[in-house]
């Protein structure tokens, strides 16, 4: 796909840590409105790819474009977030000494400058939005509890809620089902499919049942580059994929 019609465009992106190539000429394109699953063995560079997109790590070489035209290399985390790329971390990170409600309020799309927040008074619309999100992530009853008291799975959901509160164009979701029961995993898949109706989503996940239930195009990463791409059945039939990942 051409860069101009893509939502996210990575071309020849390389990153090395002390000589070790975590990303090796990685090229990947996400279309507007698309949901994509990324799989790959541990250390394949999936998280590093998200780091590079969100400005946490600068690539050594390669191009990264958002919306077809915005060059993301050289931008910092805050400006990339403001452009409309939200991220859920592999290790769920919420603000532990804030309540669930406050976590969502902080994530809510609103002016981010110190003076705007200093004089910010929460509006009725914002409250409603938080209520909707609380319902969606099933934490309505815990709104006044500190995020520190949530279980691992609940923290994952809270983080997804925060991601939605930001209302980004593109969501990067790193291992949303990790540490969840099968039932919770299925619910999370439903939630993500719901979200994908009006957002573009990139999901990294090891859980094959989860990936299958998403029913979307899959990209297999290995040693920092794309090994195979296509439907889950297609990539599962690929010998190299079986060898490095699925066959284990």
């Amino acid at each position, binding site marked *: 796909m051409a860069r101009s019609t893509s939502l996210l465009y990575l071309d020849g992106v390389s990153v090395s840590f002390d000589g070790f190539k975590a990303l090796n000429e990685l090229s990947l394109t996400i279309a507007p409105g698309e949901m994509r699953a990324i799989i790959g063995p541990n250390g394949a560079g999936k998280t590093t790819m998200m780091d590079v997109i969100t400005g946490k790590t600068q690539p050594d070489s390669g191009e990264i474009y958002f919306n077809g035209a915005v060059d993301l290399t050289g931008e910092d985390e*805050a400006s990339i977030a403001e452009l409309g790329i939200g991220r859920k971390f592999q290790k769920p990170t919420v603000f532990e*000494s804030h309540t669930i409600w406050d976590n969502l309020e*902080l994530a809510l799309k609103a002016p*981010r400058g110190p003076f705007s*927040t200093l004089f*910010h008074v929460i509006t009725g619309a914002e409250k409603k939005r938080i209520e909707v999100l609380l319902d969606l992530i099933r934490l309505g009853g*815990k*709104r006044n*509890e500190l995020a520190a008291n949530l279980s691992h799975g609940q923290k994952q959901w809270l983080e997804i809620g925060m991601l939605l509160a930001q209302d980004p164009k593109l969501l990067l979701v790193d291992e949303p089902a990790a540490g969840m029961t099968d039932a919770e995993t299925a619910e999370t898949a439903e939630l993500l499919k719901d979200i994908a109706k009006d957002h573009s989503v990139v999901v990294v996940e090891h859980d094959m049942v989860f990936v299958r239930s998403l029913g979307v195009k899959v990209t297999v990463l290995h040693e920092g580059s794309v090994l195979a791409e296509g439907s889950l059945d297609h990539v599962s039939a690929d010998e190299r994929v079986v060898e490095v990942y699925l066959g284990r």
Partner: protein
Amino acid sequence: MMSSFLFRAMDARAGIFMAILGAAIVLVPAGNLLVPETSPFHVPTYAVTLMGKYLTYALLALAVDLVWGYCGILSLGHAAFFALGGYAMGMYLMRQIGTRGVYGDPILPDFMVFLNWQELPWYWYGFDMFWFAALMVVLVPGLLAFIFGWFAFRSRVTGVYLSIITQALTYALLLAFFRNDMGFGGNNGLTDFKDLLGFDIQADTTRAGLFAASGLALVVCFLICRALTRSKLGKVLVAVRDAESRTRFLGYRVEHYKLFVWTLSAMMAGIAGALYVPQVGIINPGEFAPANSIEVVIWVAIGGRGTLVGAVIGAVLVNFAKTWFTAALPEIWLFALGGLFVFVTLFLPKGIVGTFSQGWTALRQRKISAAYEAGSDEPPTAPPHSPGAPANVTIPKPSAPVSGAAEPQPAE
């Protein structure tokens, strides 16, 4: 907008605190000026000045708590901003001496005459006017903090590295101010003040006035800090304290937030220093000593980090103890302070105020739960806010009780 901003500052705890401070502001000067000396209620002038000094320390501690308790910036250099504010006030007081100095020079302070200086250095211009000096009291520490913070926060210097460079900052200023050719009186500093705004600096009324001014400055700065930390900005600060990089990924420009509170905090420290100097009658480079900044952090830790009220209580209590110890058992003061710090760190990690409010919440929780089981209508509610987190403006419907508050997070 402004009214809702200030409205946020008030709640029961703030109310009690302000009432106590307000009473002190009225009663202490009255006890000194209006009550006859023979009465047991008479407050001697030395005590007024001593307590006035404590209040300026409390303001300094408040400034440190704002950046450390809420934003996780462990400043070990706040005494530098305090001393700079003090020097700005000292320069005004020096120029008020006029011909009453030992050498009787109408323009030059004594130490400049002594050094054979012919004219006033340019940076002493304007300090004969109070308004100018008052402006410098906040501008000089504010500007230094802004420049320092701009570089430090933009380069993402955090944690212990930041603490170390704040120590270096205050140490560099200490060395600079020791030099005679800096033009700030070298190691003797500035002293022998005569009057302030035309009032004799030794007079009981001036002393009482300075006490009241210190109390008032503390009240105003407390209200500002309180409104700030309970606003959405305050929530962002706590978010930065607990998970800085997560906050960035939400789109907040962390360095702007840090720079904002850091500069504001330095200005408050400057005001504290400016009120301190006329009460103690001297400002010298010793105020820049790195140990001074560390002591402030200890006051805050003892009182309770991230509580504002705790900073004030810690500063007053520790300094009261210091006054007593240095008179009764001068050799062991430093050991006592160190011991107290270790004790608080080990047994009261949330400080005095943090521990109390936690205990109080737990107690109330138990009472309500017991009443609920006994058939009361009021369901047990969760304590809405941890002492470390600022209060939410809108408190939605409460839910089930929680087991305990979040553990305090280290400042990275």
